[in-house]
Every structure is written in structure tokens, then in C-alpha cells.
């Protein structure tokens, strides 16, 4: 993409621009009865979920799209909270008027996952039984638990059947979970830079991140809300994460072996290379906006996720699915590699489901799905508009 194009897109996406979702407000909804029954055998109540919506729900209520965010995301998918905000929502490149998730046509919903720390019930929330933050008492969650909670929200919003569920990375896993859990309640699934189950390598990276947090003396077995939080551990976990989100090539291009703010080596353990500086910055800024217990919980939920759990094969696990699928991978994504996406596609096709698979050339690694990408926008926009057309032609059946 030419620089001019990027400038143009950015202008259109600025607050007040033609393609900006504009000012949005995070809303909140709490349910307590019946409690949310969890995979671990415990239950959770009350459950609060922070969410945002964009666009208008059609009178037929047939244009709603639920977007699931990834590990560090939140309900704020697009637009701005205040006119002073420097940055829009995390998927602003994709969500807005005239964008791929076109808010002129679709009613877009995004909720913060439970277990998170951006307004939904999580380890930092007050446990009504004790009047103190849950901390270590917060139940271990699965992605399916998070999906079940969002189903309650969707029902609360008066939507029987979603036009689509969509997500990248962990969000894509949740979209897949929805597809088999509520097959009659979704017409299309967009699974981007994702997989039906992560590899041992990915579990390994998550585990190193968790160990970094738990090795921090401030962690205190998760009971730290009265004192200092395990910031250095969480920062290291985030640094490890960032390494996995970038491709080798992109790191080489972005930083190479260049030094940060100096001409020559200093021969000490300070920040010397640009890549070190970048990782430290990412780690340190992350701790200001994220809770370590949430990080532990969510990475564990990602590790647990396996669509084939309880089935003989991935193919069998998808037998219940009825939706049309768009699966997208990126060439340089080694965290959620193309081969895994293809494994998923094979299983979908074996079930006779209408499946489209696209592998986009990109140097940006796993992060590619969050960056402006014409190819991704065109695929998502084109796919959605055809699904909506088919759905309306067939009176509700895609």
C-alpha cells in the first residue's frame, strides 16, 4: 500500500471522518439468574459484560455481527471514546461506515470477555461473597464459558440469529466455538489468523509468560490487589507474546541490529538494541492496562481450547456446524500457521460446509490481522455481503 493511501485511510478513520465509527460508549449488562455454569464445574454470578455496539439493528433483526476480541483486546473495537483519544478501537481498520464490517449495513457487537479486565467480570472484580476482589478465587474459565456468557448478552439484545460471528486469533477460536455450540443461531463464521487448537509450541510460549508472572514476588498467589501488582512479571509475559506476534522478517526490517539512541555498544545490561527498547516499551505500557490474573486466566483458556475435545476427530466436532465459513491465514504467521488453518478447512469441507479459504501474503506475522490490509478488507467485505444477500433471498437460511 502506498503511503498516500495510508494517509487517506487514516484521515477517513479519524474522528469525524467519513469512515469512522465516531464516538462510542461502552455499555454494560449484568445477569445473575440463572448463574453461568462453567466447564470447571463451578458457576459464576453475577456476571457483568462490557460491550459496545455500532450501526443499527435492522427491523428484521437479521444484520447483527458479533466480533470476539483477542487476548489483550476489549469491547472497544472501533471509533473513539472521547474526542481527545489518540487511538481508535483495536479493529478500527475493519469496522466502520464503508469498511469491511460496514456499520451502515451491519449491527456490530463486541463484548469484553469474562475473565478479562476491561469492564467484564474477572479476577479483579469484587467477589460478592467476600466484598473483596476475587483474585485467586476466580474460577478457571474456558473459551466456551466466555462464549456462553456472550450468548446470554446476544439474547438480551433481542437477537435470535446472528448474521455472523467473527474474530482473529483467540477471537477466531471463540467464533468456531459459537459455530458448533449454537449452529442455528449464526449464518456465517469468519475465522481469521486462528486455529481449532493451538500447537505445543504456542502452549509453551503461554506457559513461559505465566511462569514469568508467577515468579514475580508481587504476584502473591494471585492475591495482590491490596498491594503492588506483579508488573515486571506481566511485562515479561507481554514481551514474550510480542515476539510471537511478529515475523522474523518484520523484526529484522523494523529493528535489525540497530542500537537505540547511541552509536556504540556500552557493555552493560541496559537497553542497547532497538528491539530491546521496543519490547520493554510494549511490556511496560501493557502493565498499565492489563491485569496479571486475567493474563494467566486467558492464556490458560486458549491452551485448553480444542474444538475436537469430546469428539473422535476435528471433522466429527464440526458435524453440528451449519454456517458458511471464511477462513483466512497469513503467510508469515508462525503462531497460527497456514497449515493449521488448512486443517480446519479440510474438516469443514469434509462436512460439506460452504467454506472459503484465503491465505494472504504478508510480512507482518500474526499481527497482520490487526493491521490495515486491503486483501483482508476485501475478503471480509465481499464474503459478508454475499452471505447477507443469500440469507435474505432464502428467508433466513444462508
Amino acid at each position: 500500500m502506498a503511503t498516500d493511501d495510508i494517509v487517506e485511510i487514516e484521515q477517513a478513520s479519524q474522528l469525524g471522518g467519513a469512515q469512522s465509527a465516531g464516538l462510542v460508549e461502552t455499555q454494560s449488562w449484568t445477569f445473575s439468574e440463572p448463574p453461568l455454569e462453567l466447564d470447571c464445574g463451578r458457576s459464576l454470578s453475577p456476571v457483568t459484560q462490557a460491550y459496545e455496539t455500532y450501526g443499527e439493528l435492522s427491523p428484521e433483526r437479521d444484520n447483527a455481527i458479533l466480533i470476539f476480541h483477542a487476548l489483550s483486546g476489549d469491547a472497544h473495537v472501533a471509533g473513539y471514546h472521547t474526542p481527545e483519544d489518540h487511538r481508535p478501537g483495536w479493529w478500527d481498520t475493519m469496522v466502520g461506515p464503508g469498511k469491511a464490517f460496514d456499520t451502515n449495513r451491519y449491527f456490530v457487537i463486541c463484548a469484553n470477555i469474562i475473565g478479562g479486565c476491561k469492564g467484564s467480570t474477572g479476577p479483579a472484580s469484587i467477589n460478592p461473597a467476600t466484598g473483596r476482589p476475587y483474585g485467586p478465587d476466580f474460577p478457571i474459565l474456558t473459551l466456551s464459558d466466555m462464549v456462553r456468557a456472550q450468548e446470554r448478552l446476544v439474547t438480551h439484545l433481542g437477537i435470535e440469529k446472528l448474521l455472523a460471528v467473527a474474530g482473529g486469533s483467540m477471537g477466531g477460536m471463540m467464533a468456531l466455538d459459537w459455530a458448533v455450540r449454537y449452529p442455528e443461531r449464526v449464518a456465517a463464521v469468519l475465522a481469521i489468523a486462528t486455529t481449532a487448537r493451538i500447537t505445543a509450541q504456542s502452549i509453551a510460549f503461554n506457559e513461559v509468560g505465566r511462569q514469568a508472572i508467577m515468579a514475580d514476588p508481587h504476584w502473591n498467589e494471585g492475591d495482590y490487589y491490596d498491594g503492588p501488582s506483579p508488573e515486571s512479571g506481566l511485562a515479561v509475559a507481554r514481551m514474550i507474546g510480542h515476539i510471537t506476534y511478529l515475523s522474523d522478517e518484520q523484526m529484522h526490517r523494523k529493528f535489525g541490529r540497530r542500537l537505540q539512541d547511541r552509536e556504540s555498544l556500552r557493555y552493560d545490561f541496559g537497553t542497547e538494541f532497538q528491539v530491546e527498547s521496543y519490547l520493554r516499551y510494549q511490556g511496560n505500557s501493557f502493565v498499565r492496562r492489563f491485569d496479571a490474573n486475567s493474563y494467566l486466566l486467558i492464556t490458560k483458556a486458549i491452551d485448553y481450547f480444542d474444538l475436537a475435545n469430546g469428539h473422535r476427530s476435528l471433522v466429527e466436532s464440526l458435524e453440528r456446524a451449519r454456517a458458511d465459513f471464511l477462513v483466512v491465514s497469513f503467510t508469515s504467521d508462525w503462531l497460527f500457521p497456514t497449515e493449521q488453518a488448512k486443517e480446519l478447512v479440510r474438516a469443514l469441507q469434509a462436512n460439506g460446509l460452504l467454506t472459503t479459504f484465503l491465505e494472504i501474503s504478508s510480512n507482518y506475522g500474526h499481527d497482520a490481522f490487526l493491521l490495515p490490509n486491503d486483501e483482508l478488507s476485501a475478503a471480509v467485505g465481499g464474503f459478508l455481503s454475499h452471505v447477507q444477500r443469500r440469507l435474505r433471498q432464502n428467508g433466513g437460511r444462508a
Partner: protein
Amino acid sequence: MSWISAPRETKRRLDYELISELVPQGSRVLDLGCGDGQLLSDLMTNRGCDVRGIEIDETHVRNCIQRGLPVYHGDMLEGLQHYRNGSFDLVILSQTLQQAADPARVIHAMLRVGERAIISFPNFGWWKTRLQLLLTGRMPRHRLLPYEWYNTPNVHLCTIRDFRILCRQEGLQVLHEIFVAPPARRVGPFLANWRAGLAIFELRDGRS
């Protein structure tokens, strides 16, 4: 196995209308190397077919998505193996067989997932091809074979006779043969191996 994606716009027009005529209403169709999806889109809209495509070129895949076609981005043998036996009434391979590393294997793979296969290919026995080689002493080049010998993706060119022999050897039953003289004139079976630049075969597994 992989091959270079050839410019598809020009080569489609010749055969795709004739291929369409072989496709009954409402068939389940898989197009291998479906390009930008022109043929599939036509079959879906005009013949009410249930269509799927496989295409290796990213830009083509993008175009297919814009047409609302379910397409698999990747190599065709790899893309085929996902489907269960007999998933399709017809599997189409338009002017790509000659680019396959193992054409016989491709045909059998097609007939595993499909009841019948429609295969079109440039006929190397066409008089123009023969004459060019004979008179100029150089590798033939024309609209059906637009490449230089050193950059051609066509690694397994054959004549109509060659193809019939392959079908016999592999136990493939020929249901239809259509012969085309460029630009788009149908010719009869008489001296077809001389007169036709392009051949379209409809096959089924003769042993099943």
C-alpha cells in the same frame, strides 16, 4: 505439486461455454484452478449449480470471494483431498492438466471426489503446432501455447490421440468429446487430432 498460474482470461473464453453445456442444471460442481471464478459464477447463477473452487493465485481467490464463491486457496491435489468420495457430480479441470506433475494421478483424484470429470487441454497435434515445429524448427508458440520453452508451466503436453490412449490404459470411460478450432469453432471428430486446437473430454471411471 505446484504450478505457475497462467493468464486465465484469454484461455477461459474458448472452452468455458462449451464446458457449461455439459453441466446439467443443479449439479454439484468443483472447478480445479477456477481462476477468477467466471465459469463457476456462471454455473451458479444460470444453472443453479452448487459450486466449489480451488485456486492457487491469491488475486484470483480474492475475485472469487467478491463473486460470492466458496473457494479454497491452495494447490489443487491438496485441495481435493479434503472432500469425501463422490462429493460432486462433476469436477472440472480447464486447460491445466498439462501443467500437473502427474496428470493420471490428478484425473483419478478428480474421479474419486466426482462422479464425472470434464477436462480440457490444448491439443499438441493441432496442425498449427505441428507446422510451426516442422517449418521453423522451434518450439511452437501461439494463443493456446503462449509461453517460451524456458518459462512454460506446461510440462505434460499431449495430443488427442495420446489422451485417448491414457484413458484406455487408466480404465477411464469417455462420455463426451468436444473439439474446438480456434478461435471458437466446434469441429467434428473427423481428423480432429489435426483440426482441433483444443479438446474437451468428459470422463467417468470405467471400472466402477
